[in-house]
């Protein structure tokens, strides 16, 4: 790994915790990437090519559709396992049994351990299973591929963006460090009060239970969050509040499954950053920022694939670390 990529690896962890991404110093940019950056500067042919590509770009929803189907099927499996008593996936997202094997949501498990201060074997087994699973399959992929709130928030985001376009609302961004603060506060609250305080407001848990065991008043809280996101702040819960996202983000730091950015074909139009839930992970696509010809996207990325669908040049792709070397 080059010095630039190594620094970026640590930098992206800090970015996940809420720091702003920083501009790389020129010395850290790999020579190959420097050549590419240089070639792109004021290149008229490139501009013509870009305009041409834009005119012919077709909008794909490949990854989004795959993801929505996965998310809906997984949540449906919880529902039908109970409704028709087929016992494939029993429980809810917070804790379940997949064909008899324990699976425990890492954030919920952590809250319970902190609040109860006692660990039992089944909980550890379930958490370890999920830890290994999500380390392999990209940490925050939990958010975009499994969390039911993510799907609702995506739809709410569409309404929000429509209203923004109509100039009826404006996005009110917040300080991203808030999520880390919330993570700490909820961990401390669990530890000090002995109640799993976060679980009582977790839209993920509330929605999962509502789907499986029937709706309740708790859905009002979820509705309030969605209204807030539609009219006030784009994707506010996932971006600035949800401690589950940070937990899985940390789990995914070393995950081999990530999005890989290839500098060469990129026109630096920033379309990917406009659709992204966490655009700070895509700072590398800004002109002159990439430290290498290939840059892996950081751990706060939810692997949702919207950027892959949007990129007109195929410069952003799903990638498994080391797989290309093996093949």
């Amino acid at each position: 790994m080059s010095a630039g990529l190594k620094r970026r690896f640590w930098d992206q962890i800090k970015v996940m915790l809420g720091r702003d991404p920083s501009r790389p110093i020129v010395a850290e940019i790999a020579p190959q990437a420097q050549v590419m950056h240089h070639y792109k500067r004021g290149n008229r042919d490139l501009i013509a090519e870009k305009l041409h590509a834009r005119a012919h770009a077709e909008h794909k929803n490949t990854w989004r559709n795959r993801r929505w189907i996965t998310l809906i099927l997984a949540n449906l499996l919880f529902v039908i396992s109970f409704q028709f008593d087929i016992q494939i996936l029993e429980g809810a997202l917070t804790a379940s049994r997949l064909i008899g094997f324990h699976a425990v949501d890492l954030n919920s498990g952590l809250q319970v351990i902190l609040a109860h201060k006692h660990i039992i074997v089944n909980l550890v087994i379930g958490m370890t299973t999920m830890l290994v699973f999500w380390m392999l399959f990209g940490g925050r992929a939990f958010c975009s591929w499994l969390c039911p709130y993510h799907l609702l928030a995506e739809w709410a985001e569409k309404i929000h963006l429509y209203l923004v376009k109509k100039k009826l609302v404006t996005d009110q961004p917040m300080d991203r460090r808030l999520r880390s603060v919330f993570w700490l506060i909820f961990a401390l609250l669990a530890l000090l009060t002995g109640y799993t305080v976060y679980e009582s407001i977790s839209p993920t848990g509330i929605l999962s239970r509502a789907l499986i065991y029937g709706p309740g008043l708790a859905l009002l809280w979820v509705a309030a969050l969605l209204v807030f996101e539609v009219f006030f702040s784009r994707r506010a819960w996932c971006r600035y509040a949800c401690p589950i996202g940070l937990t899985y983000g940390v789990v995914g730091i070393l995950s081999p499954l990530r999005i890989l950015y290839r500098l060469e074909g990129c026109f630096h139009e920033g379309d990917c950053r406009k659709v992204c839930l966490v655009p700070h992970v895509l700072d590398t696509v800004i002109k002159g920022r990439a430290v290498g010809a290939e840059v892996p996207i950081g751990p706060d990325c939810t692997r949702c694939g919207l950027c892959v669908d949007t990129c007109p040049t195929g410069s952003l792709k799903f990638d498994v670390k080391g797989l290309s070397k093996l093949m």
Partner: protein
Amino acid sequence: MSEDNSAQEVGPGSTAPEPAKSGGKPPMSKERKQQARRRVLRTILLTGGVLGAAISGYLPLAYAQKQRLRPPGALDEKDFLSSCIKCGQCVQVCPVQAIKLADLVDGFGVGVPYIDARAQACDFSCDAVQCILACPTGSLTYHKPEFLPVRPGAALAAKPILIAKEKDPEPTLNMHERIGVARLTRPESCLAIQGKGFKGQARGPNFKGEMRYMDVDRWKPIKIADHPYDVPECDLCVRECPIKGAISIETVFAPNGTQRKSPVVHEPCVGCGVCEMICPVEPAAIEIVSREVWRS
């Protein structure tokens, strides 16, 4: 669209002020400063809102008039709330759907299981206390961990014998503590005390509650409405109690010195709530006091 424009539109936090580092950066324009200040304010408001919502979950606990009846094997209330992961696996295994999950009005207890005994009591038709087996966090447990004390009177003198499996090689339930105790809270309305009998469906034709009747099917609970009674002297609570020796009809002295019949609860009572569910008068003459301990 130019690159500059897109870079500006994107990214919450892309213009965050970092006073510690501002030394190297050009000074911010007035407008930028104002924007940053507003963002800080908004962030504080969001923090307050979310934390307020979270902490308000404590109010239902503080103002609760009555404790919920929890499933068998539940830890003491505080420990129960802290250890429950709110997954509902106990709900899924219960053959009579006695277990429900609490809603928002329970605050921190949202998503935590409880039993409304009058609507559907736990009659142990599963024979093995399946909900305890299903619990992934030990919130419902066969054996309480050593560091958790047992309240005096909560412990059962002996493992309860389930009448339904009295003839099995292992007739007991793996339970060491009661979840409550039955109390004759309205003796004046009790049919047994009045010396009356009962004929018909115990809770009327529309009651959805289910129970296992050994003479019907050991493994298939049926609706109570489908099992009418005809008894010369009402003893439904005693007749249907699943635990051996937990309740009986005794001759007792009334306050005025006359003798009368009355249901009497004994030490083996685990607090399952079948007596409360089956009691044919409205409201029930006998009720479970949840978390109650045995006082002799």
